[in-house]
């Protein structure tokens, strides 16, 4: 391994990309992010939850776009060209997350991530993996696993 590579995986902590949804700030582990792109109109998927905006074509593959604001029950996004799609890898699937804007890259030590405060909200329990306090700001670490709808074993008999 080269020195550079060592530096990359060094003890400086994990890197996160933070973004805004309305007034709230969230972040995702940078390793889960494949790319960030501008908003493009999506093809509506019928019979899908309302937070699934639809599907877009990313260099030949079809990927769903999740309106994160709606998913986190914050508000409904009226997508415009100023919105941003964060392409993330969740397990084996590639999913686009629609957010208002991307703000920062944070380098965070594992130990400053606090557990999610017990606010008895389903959203908090399902989607937030922890919180980071940074310069008076609170940034929630998004837990990506539950973002997509939980498909019942397809068309279960």
């Amino acid at each position, binding site marked *: 391994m080269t020195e550079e590579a060592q530096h990359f995986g060094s003890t400086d902590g994990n890197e996160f990309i933070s973004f805004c949804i309305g007034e709230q700030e969230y972040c995702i582990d*940078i*390793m889960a*992010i*494949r*790319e960030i792109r501008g908003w493009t*109109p*999506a*093809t*509506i*998927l*019928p*019979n*899908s*939850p*309302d937070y*699934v905006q*639809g*599907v*877009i*074509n990313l260099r*030949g*593959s*079809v*990927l*769903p776009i999740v309106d994160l604001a709606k998913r986190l029950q914050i508000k409904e996004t009226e997508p415009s060209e100023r919105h941003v799609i964060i392409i993330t*890898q969740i397990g084996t*699937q*590639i*999913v686009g997350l629609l957010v208002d804007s991307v703000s920062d890259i944070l380098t965070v030590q594992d130990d400053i991530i606090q557990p999610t405060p017990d606010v008895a909200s389903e959203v908090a329990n399902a989607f937030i993996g922890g919180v980071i306090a940074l310069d008076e700001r609170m940034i929630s670490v998004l837990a990506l696993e539950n973002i*997509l*709808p*939980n*498909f*019942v074993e*397809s*068309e*279960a*008999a």
Partner: protein
Amino acid sequence: MPFIEWRLKPQTGDNTLDTMESIKQTFFQECEDLLQDLESGLILMNDGEGDDETINSVFRAVHSIKGGAGAFELTDLVKFAHIFENTLDEIRSDRLEATKEVLTVLLQSSDLLMDLVEAAREGGSCNEERSQKLMDTLAGFIGAPAETPTETAMPDFEPQSMDDMGFQPLVMDFGFDGDGDDQQAAGFSIHFTPTAKMYAHGNETARLLATLASLGDMKTTCEHADLPDFDDLEPEGSYLSWDIELTTENEEEDVRENFEFVEDDCELIITPLGGISLPELPVLEDLEIEPTPVAIEPETLEVKAPEPEVKKTETKKNTETKTAKPNTGAPATIRINLERVDRLINLVGELVINQAMLTECVVDAGLSQDPSVSSGLDEFKQLTRDIQESVMAIRAQPVQPLFQRMSRIVRKAASATEKSVKLVLEGEFTEVDKTIVEKLADPLTHMIRNAVDHGIESPEKRVENGKPEEGIVTLSAAHRSGKIIIEVSDDGAGVNRERVKQIAIDKNLIQEDANLSDSDIDNLLFMPGFSTVETISTLSGRGVGMDVVKRAIQSIGGRVVISSTPGKGSTFTISLPLTLAILDGMLVTTAGQTLVVPLTSIVETLIPSPEDIHPMGSNSVINIRGTFVPLVDVGHELGFTQEPTDTNNCVVLSIMTDDGVQSAVLVDTIQDQRQVVIKSLETNYGHVPCIAAATILGDGRIALILDVDHLIEQAGQRTPSPELPQIAAE
């Protein structure tokens, strides 16, 4: 960056361990071929159609598996293959007669061998007891205790631990070559007598000898004593033979390789210089099937450098498998990594999209009137289609291996139910996309089991009904109008409609007073939660019924229907698309959305007059030439709009569903009819009700491919069915 990294990863990481593993994988792949040869050979013999070559090929298959297994120290496999091989050898040398009883055991042995190979591949183990029992039976045939030969054979496979060499796969070479008969002589005396057939096949002696000469010093004498007078001379006959003395460092098999393509069309005797001439012909066969276990000679190992050997191993193995096949007339083939083929198919998919894109651009630019542009575009389109079809043909493979596996299922099922059943295969050389073949295995297994378990009656009952004791299950495949039709039929009792209906009523699947046609009743078999046999049999009653079969077939874009005649039997007909990658579809617009309707389900398109459309409850029907057909408003049904489509300005597609029910769907307009590339929605998302897949249009946007049957079904059951995934409920 992470994106690029991700794409590159699968191509890197090539170390010795992988090489070793990949050679082992190759062995298992070859095992599959060999097991197929084995089984088809045994079945031929069982049908009394085998000849000497059949038993030879059967023997070679087992021998090669044993050899390869020895190289990988798969002891269970070697142990069993050894005794199996010995039994076959007894038959081959006419010391044991291949009676029906013997063949039954041999077929069981081939099944077990398959299981053992599978177990070795998965790293599991097989039922020891069964293996021991069969070994004892086999040993009984050849009059030797099972243990003795295996025990003596085993040490041959573990000499001079290969680990010391640091390169285990080397062993493979010897394992496969089998003859272990290393020629250290410095040359060969070759007697070569071509037959007229060899010339007819376009081979020339002069060329063969020229290439042979490249192996070393060669002295050739032409024997022309048989040459008739000119008047008697057949212009296409063969009268000459050659005696060749070749001084070479190469081994005998290299010399043989020179004659590889003509070995069936000539007499070839190769003897080491100064050696004893071998009396029988053709010699190659004898050498290959030498029954002595593979002997590894350590000194040969030492002199060979391991590295370059890898390639050699590969090539030799390939020649070996080729010659081991009974059918030497088969065209030359190569093994290709499936990933490469898939990549090619994806690229062709992109090409199809690109072609559509280009066509749109040309139209937009107003150039489509230019004859040279439009004819160029047409040609491009044609070429794209040709390329696509050729690429698809690469993936196509005959259904034969799959069908052959079914004969095993029939044997097992028949013995479990104590019925006598024969499987008849038809059209097994029909070629089907590899993915489809793979996905067909489970449903087909289920259907075959069902046919034996539920379809065929017990022998007594058959005799009573004046049928032959042995039931017949026919499995056939054919291409028909751009589709693949696979049929499973039995000559059993047919569907017992009274009982089926009663069960459906008992299980609350239908109303008691439901008025059903015969075909409606037959189709009840496909309903979820239906299982005809009241007591769960060991065989087919596992709580899963034909509905699973139906769903599996639908998932690969196929449909399945049943037809049945009481007393005569039932036929299940599966129709499948030729490929899973590209589909002919009609582009339609509804409520501002572009959708693709698969062309195969569209019967006709028509522009209705508003008075033909009548509301009926919450649905509507349309009068098509005097018949009222249910009509589904696509945009409304999919929730694209709350407003019903304007019936003054719309198009109706007349649809024939899976179950043969006529129906119609309503859309705004038809845009185009074209080939679309199928992109899975499941990869990155999940199953969407009423949507089969997605595709990418010329402008780069995504259009959804409609699952028409599901849509019509859903529209039929207004109230949301509990069967649908409860996505929104989350």
